[in-house]
């Protein structure tokens, strides 16, 4: 093992971070291709420009696969964090393509899946809910005296919802070991953040709940890693709920259907210049942590990995439609529509559809 280069990370770890950034981007680019080919029927939400926030944050936590580590609730724009927590790349593609082989067997989309052994709890679409849920997860850590923390990502305008405030207040009051990552990417679909809040930094909202907070450049993966390391240390030390604000920019539309024509091109160009992968590459090379040839290999590996598993997932089956009635309850049968079984009830009244 080589010596620590920065912030306690060695070369392998730094390159692991780099891999996480390029893997996220490659996976999402692959998704776009699959969508154009008709394999992905749902929406795609790109995280280009935000990869460092997801990777840097997840990298600072204790990631285990045996149900003893920290917890992560990512957003759809934090897929990199999901991968770092052990979320399988092939499952990512299966989920987007609604394959029977995916973790939700086609019943849910994209990164909405869970793996409690790995500490992954995928989000739901209503905003703010996961903050409430993570408050309960981390409450259980507190109740059981476990040294674990839970991280929950939210878009900045989730902080407009009641769920966000109720969940954050509950967590703060109970001193839950929860780290809230606010993705301040300056847009809520087509509405600019300044139209959704009067605060200049979301850490001002943290002050309203008496919790610790920090604002960080979300394009700088090392800065994110260090800020979240500090937050995790505080949370683990019993100092309760923490917030870390990630300042960056949503460089593509809300989803693929959004042409982003409401964005000032100059502003966008400025943020393209602050691409988190480019910035990290420059830093690695300037500091001499690795050679360009090494980085090149990592990029190629990420792209090949995505291609390979995307092909695998594409070839896998979609679920049988009749599976739709299963899994509503642990123990109660959901009926098939009688028109799909053996006709209307018979005149002798004997039971059908059982």
């Amino acid at each position: 093992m080589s010596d620590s280069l920065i912030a306690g990370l060695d070369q392998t770890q730094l390159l692991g971070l780099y891999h996480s950034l390029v893997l996220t981007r490659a996976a999402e680019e692959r998704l776009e291709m699959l969508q154009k080919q008709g394999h992905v029927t749902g929406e795609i939400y790109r995280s280009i420009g935000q990869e460092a926030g997801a990777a840097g944050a997840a990298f600072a936590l204790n990631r285990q696969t045996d149900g003893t580590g920290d917890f992560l609730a990512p957003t759809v724009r934090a897929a990199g964090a999901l991968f770092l927590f052990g979320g399988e790349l092939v499952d990512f593609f299966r989920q987007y393509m609604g394959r029977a082989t995916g973790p939700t067997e086609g019943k849910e989309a994209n990164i909405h899946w869970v793996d409690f052994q790995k500490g992954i709890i995928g989000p739901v679409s209503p905003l703010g809910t996961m903050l409430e849920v993570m408050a309960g997860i981390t409450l259980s850590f507190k109740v059981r005296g476990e040294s674990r923390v839970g991280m929950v990502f939210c878009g900045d305008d989730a902080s407009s919802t009641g769920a966000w405030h109720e969940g954050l207040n509950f967590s703060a009051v109970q001193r839950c070991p929860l780290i809230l990552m606010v993705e301040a990417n300056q847009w809520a679909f087509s509405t600019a953040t300044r139209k959704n809040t009067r605060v200049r930094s979301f850490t001002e909202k943290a002050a309203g709940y008496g919790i610790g907070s920090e604002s960080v450049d979300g394009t700088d993966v090392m800065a994110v890693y260090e800020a979240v390391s500090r937050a995790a240390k505080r949370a683990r030390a019993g100092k309760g709920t923490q917030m870390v604000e990630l300042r960056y920019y949503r460089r593509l539309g809300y989803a693929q259907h959004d042409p982003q024509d409401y964005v000032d091109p100059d502003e966008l160009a400025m943020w393209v210049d602050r691409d988190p992968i480019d910035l990290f590459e420059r830093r690695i090379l300037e500091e001499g942590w690795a050679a360009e040839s090494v980085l090149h290999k990592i990029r190629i590996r990420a792209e090949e990995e995505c291609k390979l598993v995307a092909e695998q997932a594409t070839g896998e089956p979609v679920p049988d439609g009749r599976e739709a009635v299963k899994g509503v309850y642990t123990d109660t049968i959901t009926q098939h529509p009688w028109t799909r079984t053996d006709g209307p009830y018979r005149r002798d009244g004997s039971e059908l559809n059982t």
Partner: protein
Amino acid sequence: MNQPAPEHLKKTARGEPVTLLEAVSEGLFEEMVRDDSVFLMGEDIGVYGGAFKVTRGFLDYFGGLRVIDTPIAEGGFTGAAAGAAHMGLRPVVEMQFMDFISPAYDVLTNYIATSLYRGAGPMPIVVRGPVGGGNRGGPFHSQNVEMAFFHTPGFKIVYPSTAYDAKGLMKAAIRDDNPVIFEEHKALYRAPTLREVLPDEDYVVPLGKARTVREGSDLTLVTYGAMVHKSIEAAKKLEQEDGVGVEIIDLRTLLPLDEDAIVESLKRTGRVLIVHEDTRTGGIAGEIAIRLNERAFEWLDAPILRVTAIDSPVPYAGSLEDYFLPQVEDIVTAGRYLAAY
């Protein structure tokens, strides 16, 4: 936890009769003793013991990690219950009045009810609290909330009418791996006529099973909650004054609905009257009627009718609330009509 249970929670052990409220308390208490993953969250349930004192003495006995006084934010603490349930705990969440479950509607319907189906695992959560009218509580302290959740796949809904059932159903609800909405009628909480001596043993009333309150051959009354008792009064009157034999089915659990029990009764009587305290439009009577239409049309000798509250918010003034609520005379009138059909 070696200290003795509070005296007021040992009535059954002493062979004394309990009210429905005391039965709920005993059920909760015994489940918390039996299983240390069961814990309580809600407003004023700890120090104060709950607005109706259902959890009086619990905080001292179980401590603040298992009896949690929450901020007044039903969505927030219900969502936290979901997170705790993910981690293997079994939260019982109190709504101070069930009318206040609405702020938690999002997390209940979108998150909790869908969790298992989304592959996110079971949600062993009970959301319980006082419901129902007749106490001059006005629009926000009197509602029945069952049908707001009846339409969402994933829930079970329980609504006991006796002390025995309340305790047994509470235990079954807590042990169930699915989210359960548990409604406790305020007018039944301390009703002296409902006091009964419960078996001093660990019994469970299974969810999804109706109870035949009384048998009769001419007419089936399908009902639940406080209306069970009004239906019994009406049935006695119909029998005495009209010679009509009335069978009463107490649903006890609304989801899953014990369709078989209703169908079997209908096959004996040929006539069905559904009585519920909830408002008329979108009430459970509509669902029961269509199921009987699907399954037992041939046995019907008369139309299926219903007696329900009127379609309005719950009014405050006694004269208005009495008019709003279904009364014994309404049930007698409808029963008479059906018997003569």
